[in-house]
């Protein structure tokens, strides 16, 4: 069944697959992970702020994002971002936003909902005595968060955050639905151009599998090594 398997089509398209496709996928994963973490931490702080209205808004945002399929959210932002850009810049027509910027905004806003739940658990894992002690020492709220709570919350949740980033890495393949050339998109382009679906899709599967396996193996080692603080 592998008699007609054409390894050469893979070899010929390697530069395109990795320099164009995988670079896009990894950049999107990295930047969306960072952006999602920052934005997600802000949402978590809003939910835990004790201010009713702020907490309610943050909660609604998280619930909304987590109830919707990522594919639908990608479509939403793909069409919405040009209009938001028009509104922000006061331009006369919807502005043109590149594929990378559009998908980056989508993934940051979507992942923020998931990261915020992780950071919320992380912040709640720090015993109440610590912020109390920080306030007794005269630290302000932002200093307490900045120097005492968040660094420990982040460290406690690092394995979970990284696992979520692996999920994000796999989910970036869904930009396929708006014809953006990420790694899978590149493989699919070659597959359809050369009529080599079997080779290209199996190769893409192997690459995703190897990267995700190594990454989750690394996370497991990290989990065993870092000490959990309360």
């Amino acid at each position, binding site marked *: 069944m592998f008699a007609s398997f054409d390894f050469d089509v893979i070899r010929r398209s390697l530069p395109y697959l990795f320099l164009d496709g995988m670079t896009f996928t990894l950049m999107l994963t990295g930047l969306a992970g960072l952006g999602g973490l920052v934005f997600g931490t802000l949402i978590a702080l809003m939910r835990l702020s004790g201010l009713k209205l702020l907490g309610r808004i943050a909660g609604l945002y998280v619930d909304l994002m987590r109830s*919707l399929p990522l594919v639908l959210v990608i479509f939403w932002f793909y*069409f919405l971002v040009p209009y938001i850009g028009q509104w922000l810049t006061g331009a006369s027509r919807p502005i043109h936003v590149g594929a990378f910027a559009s998908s980056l905004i989508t993934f940051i806003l979507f992942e923020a909902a998931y990261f915020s739940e992780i950071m919320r658990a992380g912040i709640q894992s720090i015993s109440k005595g610590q912020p109390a002690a920080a306030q007794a020492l005269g630290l302000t709220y932002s200093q307490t968060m900045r120097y005492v709570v968040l660094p420990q919350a982040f460290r406690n949740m690092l394995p979970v955050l990284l696992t979520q980033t692996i999920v994000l890495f796999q989910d970036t393949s869904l930009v396929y639905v708006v014809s953006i050339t990420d790694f899978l998109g590149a493989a699919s382009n070659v597959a359809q151009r050369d009529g080599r679906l079997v080779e290209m899709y199996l190769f893409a599967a192997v690459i995703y599998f190897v990267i995700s396996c190594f990454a989750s193996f690394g996370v497991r080692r990290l989990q065993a090594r870092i000490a959990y603080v309360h």
Partner: protein
Amino acid sequence: MSYHWNWHIFFEPSPSGTGTYLDMLLAGLLLTIETSLFAWIIALAFGAVVGVMRTLPSKTASLIGFVYVEFFRNMPLLVQLFIWFFVLPELLPHAWGLWLKQMPHAPFYTAAIGIGLFMSARVAVQTAAGINSLPRGQRLAATALGLTTAQTYRYVLLPMAFRIIMPPLTSEFLATIKNTSVAITIGLIELTGAARAMQEFSFQVFEAFTGATVLYLLVNIVVVVAMRFLERALAVPGYISGK
């Protein structure tokens, strides 16, 4: 140039000729529900078996369980669906491949099985976690009473484990519903696909996606409320705090 809102679009006839755009979205919703139920049955069945295997004393069984979970967890769902849909028919003997390609409703069956197997790995992890969360004494007591391993699982461990993991299973079921939208890539016109089609025919982008968003939210609410009743009905008295 600003966007022209037209909320009446839902009641205008769709080009499919079988009703309004609203009917089109509802047909998509029905397909989403059918696909996710079919997938969920597969996920529960395979997930339970593999989850049990991961907790068995046999080294081989738990290794097979481990490999199964890692295999399905480390590839994007989209890639898995492509493999089932585009690659599998080519790798099978010619006659079988032809049969698969000509099968009616191929996107539906591919999506249900593909998403079912993808989710089964996550159900397996939850099942194993549920079994491992039980006090060791339960397994030991069952053995002391003379129960075989199969009886221990059937009468002691699984009835408890499944009731403990009801809340995470609810999230996994919700994830299954959301994941059916990935099947848009293999041509399944489920809810997201229907909204996309409506957008392409009517050019009313935001109305179409708002319609789909509202329907997804409704499905979520129904599932969460139903599962809360089920959780309460199945709660082990005195074991799980009535939450």
